[in-house]
């Protein structure tokens, strides 16, 4: 399809969608209204299951099966990226020359690295209690590690980042989630049902399986994002194509 034709097809579709959507907007429950049937029930269930953060309760208890689906998409996306960005024939690795880093930047990175890591672990661990959880904390942990790239150089990052280990961590996180679900089946309940005692409200061990699944997700997200960024960094910094020397590995 040529560009003008494509643009016209889009414009016709866009006008139709815009008209229908705007019409629908005025019939939606009004913004800020009081009609939240699912929300009210979810909150009630969260409190009954002793999970202080209702959002985590929805994610890891009431809709835990849905989260398994999301997590599997994440796992598959990481796997696909690793396959696509691997080093292929006709490419060679070159040693990147470290660029000089200003002392202030270096100190900033060194000081922030432990702080960011602690924040990441905190956000993961307190998911069932306060805003946060495996998804958010996992990303904080993964990005925190890359402060080392800013503070030192690529070599330093590679030393503390054996990618193979994180690939295993990614898989273990996914597996732990499924195993927790199967454990509920063995205990005589449904897949991913919250069968563990719910504990005292508003403590780290409350919420039953919410805490376990939360940590499994945190592990998978952190490891998955580290692996992703590692592959992209490899491609951007190290791997070079040598079109002439095809076959020389």
């Amino acid at each position: 399809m040529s560009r003008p034709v494509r643009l016209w097809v889009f414009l016709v579709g866009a006008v139709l969608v815009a008209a229908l959507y705007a019409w629908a907007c005025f019939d939606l429950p009004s913004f800020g209204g009081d009609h939240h049937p699912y929300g009210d029930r979810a909150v009630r269930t969260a409190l009954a299951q002793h999970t202080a953060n209702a959002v985590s309760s929805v994610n890891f208890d009431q809709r835990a099966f849905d989260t398994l689906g999301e997590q599997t998409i994440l796992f598959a996306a990481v796997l696909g990226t690793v396959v696509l960005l691997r080093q292929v024939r006709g490419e060679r690795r070159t040693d990147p020359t470290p660029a000089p880093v200003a002392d202030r930047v270096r100190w900033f990175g060194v000081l922030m690295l432990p702080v960011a890591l602690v924040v990441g672990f905190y956000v993961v661990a307190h998911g069932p209690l306060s805003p946060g959880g495996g998804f958010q904390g996992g990303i904080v942990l993964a990005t925190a590690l890359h402060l080392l790239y800013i503070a030192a150089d690529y070599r330093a990052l590679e030393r503390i980042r054996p990618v193979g280990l994180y690939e295993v961590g990614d898989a273990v996180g996914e597996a732990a989630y499924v195993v927790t679900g199967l454990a509920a089946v063995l205990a005589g309940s449904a897949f991913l049902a919250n069968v563990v005692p719910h504990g005292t409200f508003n403590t780290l061990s409350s919420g039953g399986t919410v805490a376990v699944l939360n940590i499994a997700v945190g592990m998978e997200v952190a490891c998955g994002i580290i692996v992703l960024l590692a592959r992209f960094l490899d491609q951007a910094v190290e791997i070079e194509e040598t079109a002439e020397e095809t076959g020389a590995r």
Partner: protein
Amino acid sequence: MSVLPYLAAGWIFLIGVYGLVTSRNLIHAVGCLTVTQSSTYVLLVAIGYRRGGTAPVFSDLPPGARVVDPVVQALALTDIVVGATVTALLLALVVQLRKRHGTVDPDKLAELRG
């Protein structure tokens, strides 16, 4: 005011699709796709809002307090993270296309095939 967030979500969706359609660079197209994705989060979170409600976190709230809808928030927050990894997969495909065909212009890629 009562429909502004909904209409804004629709606008973000359409402008993102417009970017996708007119893009001359696949990396730019992936960026436009992330814009389009964010429209769904805006719509979801806007629908869950309740006037005068607070965040649905009961560590320091009495049970029965007026809170916003946690279900839509759970939907949005998982998808933001999963969406990022899907973006990574698309960018990896772009890198592969560049290696195989030497261009990231969708029109030139179409010419190569035909």
